[in-house]
């Protein structure tokens, strides 16, 4: 049963140096055509959307859309989904996109969660990352949300920035905790190919942090947030008072989701597929109601369930997986025993979950569940 949808808005006002998502800086006309196409895709598939519980509008920078386009998108979603039954309805934004009128528009359509890209509180780092918000935008934006009694606020942060010191990280941690938001995603900086940072790295203009420092920073993030009431419920995600992201949990619990828009990914009935990340062609094809995915990959459900499920700190239930996939986990993946012996995985009653060292070296565990030829 399909309970979650993802909606992709591939537009930004500027390009951040670390970002390799599918995004572009586009003309207003292109944005209009895209939103038209996207709305069409939603309408064409509305029969699949009767049981939707979570919606996530990501990007790009969705809230950078002007109010007219934003309104059109939200109205269309309200037409095809019964928003009164949603448990979570998130939109991503930069701090400087938050205005009283946009917040009102979001609330009018039932959006109950915003995810704000804060990343760091160090001005020089913000500039280096080519973020275009100012520190004041963060507090102002959050104040506007509070004034409007907006239900749930999440912020995205990055650690192990180029040249970042432990003292700077501590400062970031103090400031993000002081915001008092409900949810924090704290990612380590990754030099992805096709980013400005990666090109600088290739030209030896920047040097990534030493693995030891990165490890120490990661532990500092986990410990500091835990000590301040934010429970780590996933590798990079922390929630206060149980405010875990229901939408993102559909990914980690390997449940179906449907992606709408250029480059959006889906998992339905054990098949993963996605739209080609190309805005122009997405618009062209939408004109003839052609929303066929680019490629369809039949997945190994058990492998994915383990690879993703173990990202959650509560881990997976052995019995549940054995029943769901009619198998014996330990016979299928004898390496699980090595991970347990090495102390990466803890086997407690019926559950398997990562230890602290397992969280730090998660890829060693996750590699067990991918095949290489």
């Amino acid at each position, binding site marked *: 049963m399909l309970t979650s949808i993802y909606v992709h808005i591939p537009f930004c006002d500027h390009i951040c140096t670390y970002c390799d*998502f599918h995004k572009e800086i586009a003309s207003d006309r292109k944005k209009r055509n895209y939103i038209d196409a996207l709305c069409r895709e939603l309408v064409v598939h509305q029969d699949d959307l009767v049981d939707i519980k979570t919606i996530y509008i990501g990007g790009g920078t969705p809230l950078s859309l002007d109010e007219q386009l934003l309104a059109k998108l939200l109205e269309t979603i309200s037409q095809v989904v019964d928003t009164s039954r949603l448990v979570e309805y998130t939109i991503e934004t930069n701090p400087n996109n938050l205005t009283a009128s946009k917040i009102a528009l979001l609330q009018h359509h039932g959006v109950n969660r915003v995810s704000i890209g804060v990343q760091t509180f160090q001005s020089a780092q913000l500039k280096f990352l080519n973020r275009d918000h100012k520190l004041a935008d963060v507090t102002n934006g959050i104040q506007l949300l509070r004034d409007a009694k907006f239900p749930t606020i999440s912020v995205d942060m990055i650690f192990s920035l180029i040249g970042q010191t432990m003292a700077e990280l501590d400062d970031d941690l103090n400031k993000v905790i002081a915001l008092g938001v409900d949810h924090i995603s704290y*990612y380590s900086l990754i030099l992805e190919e096709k980013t400005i940072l990666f090109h600088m790295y290739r030209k030896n203009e920047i040097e990534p942090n030493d693995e030891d420092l990165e490890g120490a920073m990661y532990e500092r993030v986990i410990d500091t947030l835990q000590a301040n009431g934010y429970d780590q419920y996933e590798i990079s995600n922390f929630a206060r008072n149980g405010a875990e992201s229901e939408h993102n949990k559909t990914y980690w619990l390997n449940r179906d989701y449907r992606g709408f828009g250029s480059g959006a*990914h889906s998992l339905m009935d054990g098949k993963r597929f996605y739209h080609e990340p190309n805005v122009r062609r997405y618009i062209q094809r939408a004109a003839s109601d052609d929303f066929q995915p680019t490629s369809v990959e039949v997945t190994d459900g058990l492998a994915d369930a383990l690879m993703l499920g173990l990202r959650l700190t509560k881990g997976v239930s052995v019995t549940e997986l054995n029943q769901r996939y009619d198998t014996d986990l330990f016979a299928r993946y004898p390496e699980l025993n090595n991970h347990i012996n090495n102390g990466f995985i803890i086997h407690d009653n019926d559950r398997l979950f990562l230890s602290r060292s397992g969280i730090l070296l998660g890829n060693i565990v996750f*590699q067990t569940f991918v095949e290489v030829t």
Partner: protein
Amino acid sequence: MSKSIDYDKIRERQKLIRNFSIIAHIDHGKSTLADRILEHTESVSARDMKNQLLDSMDIERERGITIKLNAVEIAYKAKDGNTYIFHLIDTPGHVDFTYEVSRSLAACEGAVLVVDAAQGIEAQTLANVYLAIDNDLEILPLINKIDLPSAEPDKVKREIEDIIGLDASDAVLASAKEGLGITDILEQIVHLIPAPTGDPEAPLKALIFDSYFDPYRGVIPSIRIVEGTVKKGDKIRMMATKAEYEVIDVGVFTPTEKKKDYLAPGDVGFLTASIKDVKNVRVGDTITSVPKSANEPLPGYRKLNPMVFCGLYPIDSGDYEDLRDALEKLKLNDASLIFEPETSQALGFGFRIGFLGLLHMEIIQERIDREFNIPMIATSPSVIYHVHQTDGSVVNIDNPCDMPPIQQIDFIEEPYVTATVMTPEDYVGVIMELCQSKRGIFGDMQYIGENRVQLVYQMPLLEIVYDFFDRLKSGTKGYASFDYEFSQYRRSDLVKMDILLNGEIVDALSTIVFREFAFRRGKAITEKLKDVIPRHMFEIPVQAAINSKVIARSTIKAMRKNVLAKCYGGDVSRKKKLLEKQKEGKKRMKAVGNVEVPQEAFLSVLSLDD
């Protein structure tokens, strides 16, 4: 069976045959010249032209060098009105391939010597020219790249006369790139290179100068007919291996295969005879006919002995037989390659391989990887040491692991080479410093031409194996050229240095070093290994030791953080790809004890900046 042969016609045709090679230093434009000749004689339509047509192996094209020889038949209508049959036999330019050069020269009556009009004679050119003169070939000098602003053809002419001792007054001035001088050289080939001698009615003598393997037709030897004729249906015998076959087809390369009724004296082409066993066809052997056998085989080649050795081990031990198969196939047209099975505690079953030189080694490794797709580990190269033991006996060691215990060693001798470097005079200081730091013993220094100097050193081959080429190139901005040949064995103070990973000796990383260099090199190797071996779940000490005494140490720290952060809007496939990449990288490493060692680690000892 087939129609009877008209010998008079063959004799008339033979007068019109010209067989020649092109000798040149790397980059002096040999392949471009070959391309122009092919174009000029309309052997190949412009549409089919790929640059550097004769170089068919990918590696050759990429590196811009010729490794394997190729032979092409070309028709050329000369100014005298006759149409001549040219056989152009390509030769490699690099010193490592002297053996192959001698093979192709043996199939020719003449050679075009290409010299770069700006660079002049290079060290490697000399060796090949003398080889050609030894083979009694007519040599036609050609000064190439005269279109370059820096071209000094008169100076180069003088160099050819002064250094090589050839008459360069008729040297053709050419630019293969621009197509200049091509007709001149073609006419010289017609008039100056003699037609092949050889009696078509004599018993067959055909020289095998190359061979390749075709999965459908078996081994296909490339041959030069010296005496007699060969045609479809003939019964033939390999004079060295005594193997007998019935000829299925004969033909020439134009450059694609073209079948012929027969091959006669002077012809250069191929024959097929369903030859299944690669061992029966030896390059350098003579093919004769069974009913009418020749008494004596043709003289073989100057056989060169391998000077550089290394171990090759499949990463996946299941590939061992495939690696043997690959080596046998490569040996088919590269008789200079020798190999025998060996075992390493660290790497399992593999082969000890002998090469003519470093480039030869690199090429073979690359060909195994590309043509046979067998992932493998190469150990650092070694030379042959003469180890004199206390009991008076002498053992030859080409693998550091076979070194006797230190108490049993009286002294060790290592091979020295005579190294000849030609350089613009500005770099003499740099080169002398380099040679001295490599234990070179100064021999001679001479001015050749106005600004060019020839330096001769006695140097340990071992030191040449360690990054000498690279440092010579970078130290002289590529202006110096270099050649070497074995001179003698000399007594040296050498020791075996072991490398320990996590406390255990990795036999494949053991090297022989000059005692005075041991500390420095040990430190460099341990530092380098620390960088190339990825972090593990545990800390790994890396040690260098002589006779179990540790002389250098570094530490590979334990893994601290390795976890993917973000889930990109549900893009799970991408996360998986990253994990697959990590896992794949691990697969290309060799497990030594509980340490995963990447291939580059085994060669890292070679590229040290000491």
